[in-house]
């Protein structure tokens, strides 16, 4: 229990740090950020947008940065992340609420799948060094060195296109209304196949490699020799003794790597015009939509923190040593 509380305290601290960072980054720009932005838009900015910018950056009323900071927190607790420029009258929170489920579904499922497949292959690669799975490593390294978005582009060029089974963009067929019915769900799944495959192909190699290296290390432990000596079946030693112990560092590695992975997968959404956070971020960047960008950063960070917490709980369940009281 103590372990879990420590972790929760840490995540709260990280959350505070991320929010504070989010608050200070636009304020670190020298000069008046609003004027800079107006200049960048070359006058093509509505007066409402300018006004909302001043409010966003707390420049509408002259007050100390601490009062600003407090106001920012109060806003956050009300779920108020400001107004988006691109979707002007819509608040950022509403835009986020629309796109978050797409990202969670796509990235969540593919990351978990990739972790499981990669770990499984890693178990075999590490157990039978020099077998065909081991020979696969250079190939998977090459695949993982390809940027996600480029792989996505190639996948679209080769597999998608008019008349193909895989649609090249979007999250569902135009003309359908998002709902849990027999038309929408299959369409959404069909649209997510190619992005999911792209993420899977380029992210699986990392898991294979780390699991393989852990297996190699664990395989020379004394308790493995003992297990063999007891005459246990190969399979039992491999999964029940070696893999179980090799898995632990991989799980904590999973938690730590999440931040990296999420960053990469957002790009796949951009390439496939998938209606998730990554695509919104891309549009926000293109339109210099600061409130939306910050909102997306915040929500991604919070999701990653939550996922980390879940990974910690899983670790707690897997490793009895952390459960020991005291």
């Amino acid at each position: 229990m103590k372990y879990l509380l420590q972790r929760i305290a840490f995540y709260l601290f990280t959350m505070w740090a991320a929010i504070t960072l989010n608050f200070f980054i636009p304020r670190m720009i020298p000069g008046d950020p609003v004027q800079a932005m107006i200049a960048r838009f070359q006058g093509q900015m509505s007066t409402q947008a300018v006004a909302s910018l001043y409010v966003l950056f707390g420049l509408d009323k002259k007050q100390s940065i601490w009062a600003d900071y407090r106001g920012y927190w109060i806003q956050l607790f009300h779920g108020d992340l400001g107004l988006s420029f691109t979707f002007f009258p819509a608040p950022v929170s509403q835009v986020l609420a629309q796109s978050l489920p797409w990202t969670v579904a796509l990235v969540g499922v593919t990351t978990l799948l990739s972790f499981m497949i990669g770990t499984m292959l890693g178990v075999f690669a590490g157990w039978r060094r020099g077998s065909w799975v081991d020979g696969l490593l250079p190939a998977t390294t090459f695949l993982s060195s390809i940027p996600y978005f480029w792989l996505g582009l190639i996948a679209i060029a080769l597999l998608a296109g008019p008349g193909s089974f895989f649609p090249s963009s979007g999250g569902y067929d135009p003309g359908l209304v998002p709902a849990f019915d027999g038309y929408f769900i299959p369409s959404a799944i069909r649209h997510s196949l190619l992005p999911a495959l792209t993420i899977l192909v380029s992210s699986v190699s990392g898991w294979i490699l780390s699991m393989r290296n852990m297996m190699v290390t664990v395989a020379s432990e004394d308790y493995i020799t003992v297990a063999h000596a007891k005459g246990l079946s190969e399979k039992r030693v491999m999964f029940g003794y070696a893999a179980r112990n090799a898995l632990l560092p991989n799980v904590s590695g999973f938690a730590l790597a999440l931040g990296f992975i999420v960053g990469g997968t957002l790009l796949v959404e951009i390439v496939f015009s998938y209606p998730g956070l990554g695509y919104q971020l891309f549009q926000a960047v293109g339109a210099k939509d600061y409130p939306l960008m910050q909102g997306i950063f915040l929500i991604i960070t919070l999701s990653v923190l939550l996922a980390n917490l879940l990974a910690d709980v899983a670790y707690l369940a897997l490793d009895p040593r952390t459960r020991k009281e005291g």
Partner: protein
Amino acid sequence: MTLATTDLNAITPDGPASDLIGRSKRTRLRFVANRKAATGLAVLGFFLLISVIGPWIAPYDPSKRSSDLIQPPSAAHWFGTTHLGQDVFSQVLVGTRSVIFVGFLAGAVATILSVLIGVTAGYLGGPADEGLSALSNVFLVIPALPLIIIITSTVEEAGDTVVALVIGLTSWAWNARVLRAQTLSLRRREYIEAARATGESTWRLILFEVLPNLTAIIASGFVGTVIFAVMSEITLAFIGISSTADWNWGTILFWAQSQQALAQGAWWWFVPAGLAIAILGTALSLVNFGIDEFVSPRLRSSGRTKIRTATGGTVRMRVGFTPVLATTARTIEARNGKEQS
């Protein structure tokens, strides 16, 4: 997304690794003898060369327009042309410098930071350690790429140096963590205690006793960060955040994407840049594998694990068997062969 694969258990320098250290003096270029590392270094060297001479050997000015619009590869334009008639081959050549520059500068910044923070935290312990560890954990958990995107987009017309600094300043945490853990384990080793007992100053202890033993981890961390930095820079350019005035591989992809190169069937526009990224990334990963395997020979996949016994059956060696012996024997043979010829 390649993370540094060095894990703590793999770098504990006991077992077979310790006699390697003793031998490394005699064979200076041992690291290069590893086939993976040698391949990686060779490819990396090629890209470094291109990054230096690229702008000189480029047949055209990468931004110069011509009347050959969207031409497939030909003798005049090896990688074809863009929608403005620019030569893609020249763009790739010229763009290499920016990619290498950002990768190595960001790698250097992140490595210096991680050594400072990781080693200090691991060596000092106590409240300083807890503070620094919390700091690096925070940076580790916050998704790096969105953070980099946010920061870079607030800077106007971010050039190569700014991009490199932003990447370097946000991506040191992983290495700091690994270094801290290893420093913690080194700090209580007997030779350190002995050095401390002879009255060496803390600075000398850190610089001459601890740091040399961290070389491999630092190097592999550096290579890992270079991979990450190259990917991030290209991503930033591809999304269109960093300045599009300079050429790098991401800028090429940015234009290819915004001009719908795919829909026009202009595969030559984005294939060369993408392949270049993948090859550079693979080369760096191979160097990292080489470092890992150099430090922890158990991880080597080369060498036979199936051995024919005297009775004629085959046995798959598993426990306590490291293929190091076979490999070293072979390299020694190879070396002897070279010396004789």
